[in-house]
């Protein structure tokens, strides 16, 4: 049956090849079948923070600018990226002016104007909308339409990196005519609009079944001739990651499957031999890392447990992790490649930086960590006076290097913990492992002693990342004022309680610098300072893994924006 269809399709294709305009026809490749095992629950990204909803809506509604798979920004609905050089960004960084392309039509045939952009800002910043992406519209005084195709955003503060509003799949443009009556509390009740947003993208929604399937068809008003190549999209959801991989790689029922968090040995097996598909991995900024506690988490300290007290040389310093030699030895003792192979496979690579991407920010100064060096680690510890006791555990002045190492409950993380415990044993370090349910560990409950913010342990492990491509806010996380402590209800981002005036000085300088090369230099040196001080021990650069069928051309993955960002260019290989 399938073969027959294939025969007729190819016959039809050969005949139509004779016609010259054929290759450029919109919708020539039939239906594109995407499989997202986590199904989208709505098509309105502003009412949902989930990646699955952002991905689904990204093929319908679009932002002014988008990131490609290298984290580079491209104008999308805008004519160009505004900069200080082209006059788009004011010299004092307090405003940015976007020009939108002329003649862009919504899928209902009406024109995209600056009114729509202004409306989108008003929609998301209305206090009763409950907009999940409102942090993309922070620090804005006003968004004004200068003419029908020009918008100016005025900021409350100087923004050296002014690209967050209307950029990326988190902040796309809505059609004013459709959502006019859906602002504020009404946003919740606009089911019809939220499920069928009108967009400027290559496809438009025909049928939306929440948490199940989205049926889309090519947008006949799309701005580029002959695109998209597919006449429609079937966006199916549900099931689990392993069977999603199977549907692309083994049965070939689907063209594309997203976010394949599958055990490496299972995925490798599916991908080898006469597999029907290919695996791609996109890498963003996510790094699985060990946080080193610079304060003493001893329960006997009561209220001052793991509390940064400051003072000369940190009055509450950790008994052994405050020793540079110990921190460095812990990092040297780890064979990161084993961790990647056992737990991550396609979805991971070794990282020696906490800021591994975008590529322009990635430092090469810390590559020492790429190779395990147990001898050097042992030598460091011997030299620092940590001698092995009768049980093989190193100690000095009655302090044993005995580490409590915590993380969230997750089979890959527990595997990593077990490997690291063994590796540390080789340098005379004793490790006690602990895992805490993710909802508690990341839950942020002030009353709970088990959160990653309270950090009542010596070492903790998790992944963190940042949205967008500008690392300034992320790198600010390790300044002194961000230290998680009692006075800020453990709300700071600085979990290691690392406090270094030199680092703070770099952070201050960065907030005043707009020149990209200078910002890159600053970000790199901040990263290097953290790495060479071993405030954190990076382990694995984590990526998103997807699979696409062998006949599909176009997918490149993307961790900065939607993986479907270039879906208009996807087509079937003939």
């Amino acid at each position, binding site marked *: 049956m399938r073969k027959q269809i294939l025969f007729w399709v190819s016959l039809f294709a050969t005949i139509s090849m004779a016609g010259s305009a054929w290759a450029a026809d919109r919708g020539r490749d039939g239906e594109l079948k995407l499989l997202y095992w986590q199904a989208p629950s709505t098509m309105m990204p502003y009412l949902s923070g989930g990646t699955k909803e952002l991905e689904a809506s990204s093929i319908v509604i679009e932002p002014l600018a988008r990131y490609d798979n290298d984290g580079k920004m491209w104008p999308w609905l805008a004519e160009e990226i505004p900069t200080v050089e082209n006059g788009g960004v004011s010299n004092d960084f307090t405003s940015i002016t976007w020009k939108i392309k002329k003649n862009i039509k919504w899928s209902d045939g009406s024109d995209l104007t600056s009114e729509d952009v202004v409306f989108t800002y008003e929609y998301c910043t209305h206090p009763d909308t409950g907009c999940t992406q409102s942090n993309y519209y922070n620090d804005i005084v006003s968004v004004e339409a200068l003419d029908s195709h020009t918008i100016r955003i005025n900021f409350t503060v100087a923004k050296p990196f002014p690209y967050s509003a209307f950029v990326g799949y988190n902040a796309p443009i809505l059609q004013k005519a459709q959502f006019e009556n859906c602002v504020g509390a009404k946003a*919740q009740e606009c089911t019809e609009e939220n499920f069928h947003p009108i967009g400027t993208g290559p496809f438009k929604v025909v049928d939306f079944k929440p948490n*199940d399937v989205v049926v889309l068809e090519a947008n006949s008003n799309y701005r580029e001739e002959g695109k998209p190549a597919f006449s429609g999209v079937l966006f199916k959801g549900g*099931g689990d990651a392993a*069977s999603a991989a199977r549907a692309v790689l083994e*049965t070939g029922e689907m063209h594309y499957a997203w976010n394949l968090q599958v055990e490496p040995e299972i995925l490798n097996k599916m991908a080898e031999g006469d597999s029907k598909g290919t695996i791609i991995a996109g890498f963003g900024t996510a790094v699985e890392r060990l946080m080193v506690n610079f304060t003493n988490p001893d329960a006997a300290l009561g209220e001052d447990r793991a509390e940064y007290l400051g003072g000369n040389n940190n009055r509450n310093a950790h008994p052994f992790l405050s020793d540079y030699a110990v921190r460095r030895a812990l990092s040297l003792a780890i064979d990161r490649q084993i961790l990647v192979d056992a737990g991550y496979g396609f979805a991971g690579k070794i990282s020696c930086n906490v800021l591994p991407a975008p590529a322009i920010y990635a430092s090469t100064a810390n590559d020492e960590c790429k190779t395990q060096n147990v001898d050097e680690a042992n030598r460091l510890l011997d030299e620092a006076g940590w001698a092995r006791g009768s049980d093989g555990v190193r100690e000095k002045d009655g302090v044993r290097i005995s580490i409590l190492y915590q993380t969230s409950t997750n089979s890959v993380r527990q595997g990593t913990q077990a490997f690291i415990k063994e590796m540390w044993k080789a340098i005379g370090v004793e490790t006690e492992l602990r895992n805490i349910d993710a909802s508690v560990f990341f839950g942020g409950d002030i009353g709970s002693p088990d959160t990653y913010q309270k950090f009542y342990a010596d070492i903790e492990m998790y992944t963190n990342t940042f949205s967008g491509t500008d690392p300034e806010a992320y790198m600010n996380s390790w300044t002194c004022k961000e230290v998680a402590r009692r006075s800020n209800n453990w709300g700071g981002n600085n979990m290691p309680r690392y406090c270094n005036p030199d680092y703070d000085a770099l952070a201050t300088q960065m907030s005043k610098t707009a020149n990209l090369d200078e910002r890159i230099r600053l970000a790199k040196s901040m990263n290097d300072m953290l790495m060479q001080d071993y405030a954190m021990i990076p382990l694995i650069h984590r990526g998103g893994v997807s699979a696409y069928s062998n006949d599909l051309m176009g997918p490149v993955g993307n961790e900065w924006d939607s993986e479907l960002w270039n879906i208009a260019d996807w087509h079937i290989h003939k």
Partner: protein
Amino acid sequence: MVQYIIRRLLSAIPTLLIISFVIFAILDLAPGDPTGNLPMTVPPEVREKIRLSLGLGEPMHIRYYKWLVQFFVNEPLNIIEHSFGIVIGDGENRTRILSWATRSPVIDLIVERTPQTLWVVGLSYLFGILMAIPIGIIQAYRQYSLFDQIGTFVAMIGFSVPTFFTGVVAIIIFSVQLKWFPMIYDTTLEVNSWNNFVLQVKQMIMPVTVLAFYQASQLSRFMRASILDNLNLDYVRTARAKGRKENAVLMIHVLRNSLIPVVTLIALGIPSIFGGAIITEQIFRVNGLGQLLIIAIQGADIPTVQTLTFLFAVLIVIFNLIADVLYGMLDPRIRYD
């Protein structure tokens, strides 16, 4: 009989009210935050605003009262308006139970998902019954025969091997190796032509078989035990002594009496069809009511969980009543008047 039914229905009202309150209280007390699944990059102030927009700012008793009004007044009125095309009162501003994850009315979600659940889970239940009854009869009548031994063995496998195992095995054999059936259930398929009908049958075969096998394994054991109980009774000997044919003895006298407990079991099992077969639905991506419930639980979508579990409670109460009534009809010894 009518009086009995009315009495039972009236007594169900306080029971259901208590159930609804207990469900609401449990869900409210359980940890779980609708903003818990948002990425770490969403700041706490934004989370708080989202919670307020979902109505979480109000105290529990007010939220419970609102849910009661929405469920017992607004939603039925809405159904009446839709089915008769009339407008009762202020239909525009009547609030409905909204799911927190999809921001759409929960009842619409349920209505949208009921067909695929009924098709897949309902059909498998039906096939399960159709297989189990004859198998159980033959097994009991020819106790310890080869057929009985094999039947017992297969039934043991059937209900000791979980459906998430048989389902995956079926996929690997029939989808990956043999390529007979699709492994992904297409809920957008409309049966409007012969070709589509064939496709629909093809995509239903695996989930229905896996579930029917499981159901039949259980029911055939009950059927077999029930027939065995009856075969040794005096009335069977009397019937045989009267000279009735063996066939009539088994199919008329024994079967009718043996079916009484089995029919009750079947009736009591019907609400579980609506509960969907959570795991089987996940494996084959049928995305019916079971998958709706599990996703709502994972996402702390409390209105959806509350409404679905309460509807299941209503179904269980109703089918308990139906089972009791059927009992009276099948067994003349039981009278409710």
